[in-house]
């Protein structure tokens, strides 16, 4: 199989994570924000798998499975919330839902 230095895999994870973060901060559309979250979660999972692969152990993959589970749960609830927001505010602008202002 491949013999890439481990840090390059981790760097890929870091870049993907940073891209997800950028998307999260920039986009105002709730759907895009959720997508950005997915990118970040995926990047975190990638980092675990890289580490697990480095030691030849299955634990990294197991944690990835857990992250996957969590992402699925989060997306289902998050998308239901998106529908609610759209129904209530007639827009997907996340700044419209800022009623919890201090």
């Amino acid at each position, binding site marked *: 199989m491949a013999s*890439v230095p481990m840090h390059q895999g981790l760097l890929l994870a870091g870049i993907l994570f940073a891209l997800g973060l950028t998307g999260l901060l920039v986009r105002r559309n709730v759907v895009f924000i959720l997508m950005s979250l997915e990118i970040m979660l995926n990047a975190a999972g990638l980092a675990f*798998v890289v580490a697990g692969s480095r030691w030849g152990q299955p634990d990294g993959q197991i944690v990835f499975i857990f992250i996957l589970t969590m992402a699925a*749960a989060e997306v289902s609830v998050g998308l*239901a919330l998106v529908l*609610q927001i759209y129904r209530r505010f007639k827009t997907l602008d996340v700044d419209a839902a800022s009623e919890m202002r201090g």
Partner: protein
Amino acid sequence: MDAVFYIAAIVAIVSTVLAITRLNAVHALLYLIVSLLSVAVVFYVMGAPFVAALEVIVYAGAIMVLFVFVVMMLNLGKAATEMERQWQKPGMWAGPSILAAILIGEVAYLLSNPSTLAFGAAVVEPKLVAIQLFGPYLIGVELASMLLLGALVGAYHLGRRTQGKTEK
């Protein structure tokens, strides 16, 4: 095989960049699926075939399909794209990009003394993963199942149409 990793990595980064910059949600989703598939390739190269399969089936398959469904339900048309265009002013990218750049810089610095240790030397078989998952991590599996149940109930509750009427 090294080349496969690098190509897949570049594809992942590019498609992710495109995914977060698209104005149309469906276009963005398609790029995101490409990104996830290329990460799946990376997993496979790293010797984690089981996770690569999961990535394709659950992430690129199920979750993204969910997104597509919702986008279709919302029925966003040209007006939404126009709205996105208004929202996406070039100046808005500056702050988040700087933050992200610093973060990547820090990560790169952390990894700056490259270890000679390579990964992906051996394939971790799905069987091994399964033994571990249902052995020492059993409690985690149980918790994950509870989390999914909670998400199921929550999504069902939030998704009901009648709720808007009763609450207001």
